[in-house]
């Protein structure tokens, strides 16, 4: 029996921070056992947003499953698309053949997604602690990013843009100019957020020495991403297990040792600045060329070919109806998401549909470390810790 549900003496009280709560960032049921105002034990209960995505994947072809990956971490859809697509490409063995322009576009989209996700994190974290202004300002910046995404692919929140073999379409005219504008103004905005929060005494009182987790515990619990980098673990998949064109770009990985909410806050703020740096480099280095691999076995061909050549039409039908035949085997690929490491494990038996698809969701792992972080704290600290862990239930419950 989980200790969080057993009351040992008269001072202890069990409190339910219920699934319907404006500060739990989704549907989280968090049961805490209190001794006065201090938390003795707690237990997070997840699963209210479970939609059976992993099971649905067994009935869909690989192309058909792409829109579903958008809806895992719906705040950074581009990064989810990217992780899934790179896992499938690893299974097919075509990772080296992705055109270079497509790789640069993918990096641009991924970093914009990272900034967008961190802006939401900042907004909601600050809002929960009480700073409403920051919420509105960061959403204003987020609108810039979302407008750029809408120009490129057509939707604002769930994109279905990064596809197996490249990206769906080339960047439209005007995209690069807007990107340049955005990178120029963003440094100033980050400085403003720092002005509003970083030295603010209320903020320091609410976040310093709250939600502490040591370096060993962070590694033992398996959490990854900004949460461990706030505890001194120097690990980032973009540098240590690189993919796409990250080896050619210069950027730093911010690491802070304190291990509390304030450290994680600083990590993410610095990450936003570093992402902006990456974007500037990409704008200069991006080459011209095709944006999709020319492999008719796996990829849908352009409309002119389908409408003019009968063999292209025949292959198109087989690819859409039965799905391309992936070689049998299993593969795992992890990408650096704004929230941690998003991993896709695919087991294929040689058919058009995956036999098993497992998603390693960072939010799910991060939540498991919460009881350790809040132990001995006050009820209000739960809200700070929830904000600093930055989980999204689309990803956690799948």
């Amino acid at each position, binding site marked *: 029996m989980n200790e969080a549900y057993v009351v040992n003496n008269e001072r202890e009280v069990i409190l339910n921070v219920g699934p319907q709560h404006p500060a739990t960032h989704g549907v989280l049921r968090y049961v805490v056992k209190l001794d006065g105002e201090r938390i003795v034990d707690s237990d997070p209960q997840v699963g209210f947003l479970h939609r059976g995505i992993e099971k649905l994947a067994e009935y869909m072809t690989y192309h058909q499953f792409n829109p579903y990956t958008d809806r895992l971490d719906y705040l950074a859809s581009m990064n989810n698309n990217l992780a899934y697509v790179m896992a499938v490409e690893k299974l097919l063995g075509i990772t080296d053949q992705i055109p270079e322009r497509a790789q640069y576009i993918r990096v641009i989209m991924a970093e914009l997604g990272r900034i967008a996700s961190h802006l939401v994190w900042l907004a909601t974290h600050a809002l929960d602690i009480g700073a409403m202004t920051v919420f509105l300002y960061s959403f204003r910046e987020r609108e810039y990013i979302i407008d750029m995404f809408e120009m490129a692919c057509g939707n604002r929140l769930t994109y279905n843009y990064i596809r197996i073999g490249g990206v769906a379409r080339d960047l439209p005219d005007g995209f690069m100019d807007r990107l340049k504008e955005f990178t120029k103004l963003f440094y100033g905005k980050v400085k403003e957020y720092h002005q509003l929060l970083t030295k603010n005494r209320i903020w320091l009182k609410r976040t310093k020495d709250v939600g502490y987790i040591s370096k060993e515990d962070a590694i033992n619990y398996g959490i990854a991403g900004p949460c461990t980098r706030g505890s001194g673990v120097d690990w980032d998949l973009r540098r240590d297990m690189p993919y796409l064109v990250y080896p050619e770009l210069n950027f730093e990985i911010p690491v802070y040792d304190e291990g509390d909410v304030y450290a994680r806050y600083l990590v993410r703020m610095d990450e936003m600045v570093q992402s902006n740096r990456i974007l500037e480099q990409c704008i200069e280095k991006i080459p011209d060329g095709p944006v999709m691999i020319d492999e008719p*076995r796996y990829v849908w061909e352009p409309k002119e070919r389908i409408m003019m050549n*009968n063999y292209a039409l*025949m292959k198109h*039908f087989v690819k859409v*109806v039965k799905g391309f035949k992936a070689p049998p085997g299993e593969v795992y690929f992890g990408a650096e998401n704004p929230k941690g490491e998003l991993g896709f494990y695919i087991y294929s038996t040689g058919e058009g549909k995956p036999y098993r698809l497992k998603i390693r969701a960072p939010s799910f792992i991060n939540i498991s470390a919460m009881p350790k972080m809040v132990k001995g704290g006050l009820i209000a600290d739960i809200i700070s810790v929830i904000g600093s862990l930055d989980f999204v239930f689309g990803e956690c419950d799948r």
Partner: protein
Amino acid sequence: MADTVKVKINGKEYEAKKDETILQVARRNGIYIPAICYSDRFGAIGACRICAVEIVGMKKPMLSCAMKVKDGMEILTDSEKVIEFRKNIVYEWDKFHPLQCGVCDKSGECGLQDINYELNITENPLEKEADPLSVPNRTIHYEWKIIHHDANLCIQCRRCVTICDRVVNFGILALVKKEWGGREIDTKDGKPLDCEFCGQCVSICPTGAMSSKLFKYKARPWEMDKVRTTCQFCASGCQMDLNVKDNKVLRVTSEDDTPNMANLCNLGRFNYSVVESKNLINSPKVNGSSSNLDVAIKKAADILKSHGPDEIAAICGARETVEDQLALKLFFENAIKTSNIDSFASTHIGKLFSVLPKGVSPLNNVSDMEECDVIFAFGGDVANEMPRLDWQTTRNVKLLKKSKLVTAYWRDTKIDTLGSVALRYEPGQEVEFLNSLFGSLAGALNVSTDIKGSIEIPEDAVKVLSEAKKIAFLVGQEALERPNGSDVALALANLMLLFGDKVKLYASSKYNNSYGAIYSGVTNGFDLYGKSKEKVFSLYDLPKLVEDGKIRAIFLLNADLFTIFSDEDARKIFDKADVIYLDAYMSDSVKYAKVVIPVATFASTDGHYVNIEGRFNRVRKAIDRDVLMAKDVVIRIAGQYGYNLPIGYIKEALDKATFDLDQDMDSFRNVQSGGFDFTGSLKGVVVYSKFRSGIFSSFGEGASIAMEEPVLEINPEDAQTLGIEDGNYVNVEGLSALRVKAKIDDQMPKGVVSIPLWFAGYNAYNVSGSLTNLFSAKLMKGE
């Protein structure tokens, strides 16, 4: 010396049997070699040439579908030469193929689409040769019935020609030269298609060239669910898949791994629209007016309660599942305590199976016919009664060249085109013929007997039969249904006893579960599992018993009396007795029965049919209808009657799944060669049609388009004497008259005319009398 050889394919070694082809070895070990014109149903043709592989040491690529393996052969299936060769063939196919994947019904299961994808065709250097203005301009045969042929989609693999010739033995398709200079698939004489409409060509065509008009543009293959079930039109028990979408059966397919090798006949493949609700009984009826289920069940139970056990009879139509029959048997034997139960099986196989000789194997797999070196087809037109026996005979004689065929009937039929020793007699002389054959064979086999007959049996027939190592006896339903059918059965048993355990018996039946009726013990003379029992009540006596008032209430289970009785006799039964009628399909019986309760069709029921092989084939539910299965209706009527039917006994009886037939006959019996007294110059025979099985089959599209109305077949000389021309309408008179179209057939013997059974609106038994299939015919030209 073992006949296994070792071959190397792509560098790895494999073992193979001596007679196997390279393609079979590769497929067995999971190595992919594309093959379009090869099929297990008829072997190799060598027309498409895409299965070519490179053999080390030979200059040209060899066809792997035809080449047999030799010891030490080294085969490369993916070398550059081979891939180049294959791609050139596909370029030829793609040259003229129109861009119709969007509308073509075959999309999604098309062999050409799959080959283009697997070989990853990205260009076509032959495209420049094709004049775009001339494509597509080949014939599209919109005027053919049921089957649709579009020559633009054809890749000329000749699968359809081969299967029509070597499996179906009809041979109407061929590659014909056309005015535009090339060749197309067309009928041999150029006339619109007029064949058996079995649809094997549709099922085997790799592209959409041969397709089904009944299914055209209805749905896409990937949208439909496939439910494996058993056909309900004869006792072959062919396994088929009902393709269902949105609770409607849209088409029927069959797979290569079924016992019938994906072959289906016209009724099985195209007649699935019988299960549409417009052909079914939609609501229960009591005394002619619509009612609801509870009232009808109560009335049925009341009728049964109000008569003594000797005044009640039950008839099973041999089309329901074994579970339904067992439920009826338990109810009638244990609750009503009457043994007046009979089924339609007692008109044919019931008579034969009650006199089975010792040593004869009565239930055999149809594919076991391949072990027999002589096939003896007696007493019926095998192709019209059970097409599966026709296909197996064709396979034995034409494809595998393993057996000799001896036919014994009163005319030439389809299987005689395979080349047979033909023994002929006049209709009605079956017993005389069998006795004569018995006498001659007994002489040749040195068995002493005094049974003999007066018909001359040719020497070569006697030689073939007496030297046979294993004989397949194909017994037609028509001979057993003669007025002296029991004597025919006895004479046949004598003949089988002569050969003993060399005989494999195949007794055909047009009723899909007549063998189940013997297993369940609902046939006169049979108890559960087919054990012999004293004969108490026979279907043949029913009209007389009802007229004398001895039987006052009848329970009919899927038994439309108009399928075995003339209209007059059936009406008399319905008028005098209280009839409880359980069936799925609309029929004339529905109008006259006192209580009518609808039950599920074969597409909505779950159970088992027993086929000619003695196999318990599963029938699965494919569509949902708000109608109970017949078994459940019987259980409810029994409950209303006051009897709790033990459902466990049904399952127990089904689990045994083997017959316990009593094969007692061990000595020859004397049989009176009765015959039939024909008055007048024309002998009339009632025959079975390939396109009808039960009157309800007339309501389906496949059967009614293939043959709309019955035809009377007459010899050309007789027609000339009577002044009848082909296509005229005549009135054929026996006990009463029927107006049918005449067809002149020079295979009909002089002095004999035949009319087919079970065409809706044309009850042939009106002319010949109930349960007899011989009559003295008078023909008059009608207008």
